[in-house]
């Protein structure tokens, strides 16, 4: 068994739960995450202790004081920050410590999904505008190709926003009855 393993994998922001499941499976196979850069994941053979992973889209840049303060708070609660990539934090805790959740009430979960939605929306809109400008205002094939790519990204992010908005809707419905 190799000590270091590199895996290439595309991460779609709205599928972070599938990403967590994959990282958990890698841990089951004996590999723990070391670092992430774009689609490149670096793993190291672990000590044998199984870990559970969570990805979180942070409300502050992890290099800022507020972002660091939050990650320090998590560390105090036994949650290790493996690495950060942009505003995403890759967090883990030993599997033996039970269920690993970052939010235990509905309002916090709704707040989290809203934060993710507010990130996806402007990116989608920028791609829509760029796509339309490239296709409608220019005649060159290269502009049409770039425009088509932007519209594809827009549609991809629309799918992500739909999934995120669905989660907010379901939680709001639940909140009408439970806290």
């Amino acid at each position, binding site marked *: 068994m190799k000590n270091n393993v590199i895996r290439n994998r595309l991460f779609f922001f709205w599928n972070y739960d599938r990403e967590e499941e994959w990282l958990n499976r890698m841990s089951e196979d004996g590999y723990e995450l070391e670092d992430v850069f774009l689609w490149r994941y670096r793993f190291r053979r672990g000590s044998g202790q199984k870990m559970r992973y969570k990805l979180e889209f942070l409300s502050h840049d992890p290099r800022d004081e507020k972002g660091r303060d939050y990650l320090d*708070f998590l560390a105090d609660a036994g949650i290790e920050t493996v690495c950060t990539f942009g505003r995403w934090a890759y967090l883990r805790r030993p599997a033996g410590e039970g269920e690993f959740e970052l939010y235990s*009430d509905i*309002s916090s979960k709704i707040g*989290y999904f809203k934060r993710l939605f507010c990130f996806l929306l402007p990116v989608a809109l920028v791609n829509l505008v760029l796509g339309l400008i490239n296709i409608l205002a220019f005649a060159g094939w290269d502009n049409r190709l770039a425009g088509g790519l932007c519209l594809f990204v827009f549609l991809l992010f629309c799918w992500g926003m739909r999934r995120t908005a669905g989660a907010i809707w379901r939680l709001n419905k639940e909140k009408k009855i439970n806290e």
Partner: protein
Amino acid sequence: METAALTEAVYYILLSLREPLHGYGIMQRVEQLSGGRVRLAAGTLYGALSTLLERGWIEAMPEPRGSRKKEYRLAPAGRRAAEAELARLRELVRNGTEILEGDAGNEK
């Protein structure tokens, strides 16, 4: 004074801070107070502490030099909020007991 119901998490955080505690200490204390029923996740607790600090219901204790662990304690406004919630909960229990147990008595 706030009249809306407090969330269970906020109510237990306020109760737990009768003595100064840091984040993980609050999580443990709340779990202990609720007999293991309420387990606050770290993200939820952090968000609640930030809101309570902004409202002045809790205070951050001065940090010892070199320590990054913040300790919090209950502020007078937080104590009043917890007392108001206790009064609200008593009213719920009183009315629930009168109506539901009264119904049970009539059915016998």
